[in-house]
């Protein structure tokens, strides 16, 4: 095991998959000589050359669409959207094409495409460099949506995404890139299965179901609350769509009190699927209402620090919400 940061896990996964399979190539804006604006593709251009680490024109629909074409041909493209906020011009290609090609062709064609994009706030990125966009893609059969929280999961899930024969949206928290560090097995070619949630902490009083950077807020809060005698169970969804229904229901049953946490705005967030699954499957096992903790329903995170803080999720907000639920 070595300790690496979240973004290095991205780079390692890319590098190892490119090494392993000639069909894997990277395309996106500034992914080449620049190594990506966050440096996620650093060193790949030097190692694999410009054909396999392709700087594209500034046109997201083309990045997705060209990626889809290459994937149908039989390659395994990894397309980068520079920020999740800039995935929207590519929505038609992702939703109408990538997601529906296997089904519409009755399994004749497939799209083994991975689309990576940094999401999330807390980095003074303002409205358009801070968004969580997963809710828009989490009702689209044919797509998979993955949001990892730890370097271990980043690496294992990104490799799984690249090897997956279906299109995967892979959202990486940009604040986690250099903030979150964790252990990754050295020289071990592992994958983490897409579609499985993961218990990141066991506990008996309150269940927190969350994903991405918020997992860490929950872990920190749980650590503190432990001292007050509150025991928190934390489920990391990891795959947002299709959601691990069994994992969610089990985690809810475990404590009977459920706190759902997202950095995204509240109404219509992906947490709702967890809420609905629990309400369908184990309503009568609950000891308190299902709580949602999320950003306020305003268009996106403002730039001015006090406003950003009001919008952004953090450890304290999670802590109070858990405490409240524990005392319900």
């Amino acid at each position, binding site marked *: 095991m070595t300790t690496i940061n979240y973004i290095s896990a991205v780079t390692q996964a890319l590098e190892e998959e490119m090494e392993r399979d000639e069909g894997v*190539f990277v395309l996106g804006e500034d992914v080449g000589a620049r190594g990506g604006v966050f440096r996620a593709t650093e060193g790949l251009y030097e190692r694999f050359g410009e*054909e*396999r680490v*392709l700087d*594209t*024109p500034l*046109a997201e*629909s*083309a990045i*997705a*669409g*060209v*990626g*889809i*074409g*290459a*994937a*149908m*041909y*039989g*390659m395994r*493209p990894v397309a980068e959207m520079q920020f999740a906020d800039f995935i929207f*011009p590519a929505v*038609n*290609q992702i939703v*109408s*094409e990538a997601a*529906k*090609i*296997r*089904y*519409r*062709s*009755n*399994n*004749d*064609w*497939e799209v083994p495409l991975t689309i990576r994009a940094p999401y999330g706030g807390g980095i003074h990125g303002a409205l358009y460099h801070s968004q969580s966009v997963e809710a828009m893609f989490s009702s689209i*059969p*044919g797509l*998979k949506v993955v949001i990892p929280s730890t370097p271990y999961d980043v690496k294992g899930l990104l490799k799984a995404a690249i090897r*997956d*024969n*279906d299109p995967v949206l892979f959202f990486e928290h940009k604040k986690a890139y250099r903030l979150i560090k964790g252990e990754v097995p050295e020289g071990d070619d592992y994958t983490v299965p897409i579609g499985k949630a993961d218990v990141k902490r066991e506990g008996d009083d309150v269940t927190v179901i969350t994903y991405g950077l918020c997992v860490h807020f929950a872990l920190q809060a749980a650590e503190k609350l432990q001292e007050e005698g509150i025991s928190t169970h934390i489920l990391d969804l990891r795959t947002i769509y299709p959601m691990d229904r069994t994992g969610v229901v089990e985690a809810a049953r475990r404590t009977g009190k459920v706190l759902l946490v997202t950095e995204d705005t509240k109404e219509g967030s992906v947490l709702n699927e967890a809420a609905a699954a629990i309400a369908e499957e184990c309503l009568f096992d609950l000891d308190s209402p299902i709580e949602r903790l999320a950003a306020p329903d305003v268009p996106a995170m403002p730039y001015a620090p006090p406003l950003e803080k009001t919008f952004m999720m953090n450890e304290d907000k999670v802590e109070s919400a858990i405490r409240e639920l524990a005392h319900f």
Partner: protein
Amino acid sequence: MSEPKHEALGLERDQLLSMFKTMLTARKIDERMWLLNRAGKIPFVISCQGQEAAQIGAVTALNTEEDYILPYYRDLGMVLHFGMTIQDLMMSGFARSEDPNSGGRQMPGHFGSKKHRIVTGSSPVTTQVPHAVGFALAGKIKRENFICLTSFGEGSANQGDFHEAANFAGVHDLPVIFLCENNKYAISVPVDRQLSCERVSDRAQGYGMPGETVDGNDPLAVYEVVKKAAERAREGSGPSLIETVSYRLTAHSSDDDDRSYRGREEVEEARQKDGIVTFAKYLKEHDLLSEDEEKDMHNSIQKEIDKATDLAESAAYAEVETTFNHVYDA
């Protein structure tokens, strides 16, 4: 007298007859679809009528064993040339399980068959255009020799995806032929309210590629320019934009009634220039096709279509449980 055009192009009689036959087959399948639609037997038709010459001229310049096509919904002629059969298309019209395009999941006109290197298409227009660039890019990375032809209407040339894809192909010199089948209407909207330029091919310069506008009723003229573009692409010199100009002889689809937005005379005038008519005339003038041969051709195609219609009509729909299949890789 100068050399006949087909000789100058090096096209033999059997090739010409095969071109004509495919054009005719496309037309006749389409006509049958309308009859079936009007008889209430199939819910939907979208036609190739008026564009067969352009389609067949174009694909004749390709290598069906190597190249990929990413056609749009009117390209019945193209897919026939690339190996789809009358029966396949009838199965599609009737939405039967044996439809190779989609097993009856998609409307007719949504072509696709990996076996024939016809890349699956959808309804939102122009989405196939970046896919063609993706195929070409993959071919370049893999050092393959194939080229890709993708087609679309002149209305669809105004979608952002056309622009982004053309620019991408231009920057990376990819072997793509962008074929715009200008049939003068996008549903009810005539070209002058659709396109800000005189010719779609005026856009080629903006993507650093050659652009040509050609008579879409003349399969030989289309063959000629596509051939040149194909050679260019195969040499590694990059993409081309070709516009074929003809006319949409039917309403937009079986759901449309075109009388509200265009006059009958205009349609009649276009019928005079119909490539099916003018190419037959050309072949006869050059003693390549006799009246009898033409009649035989009509008859034999008609018979095949009758047979395929019967077969398709009595074929089964996919089982209802299959509704749930193939969302993800099994």
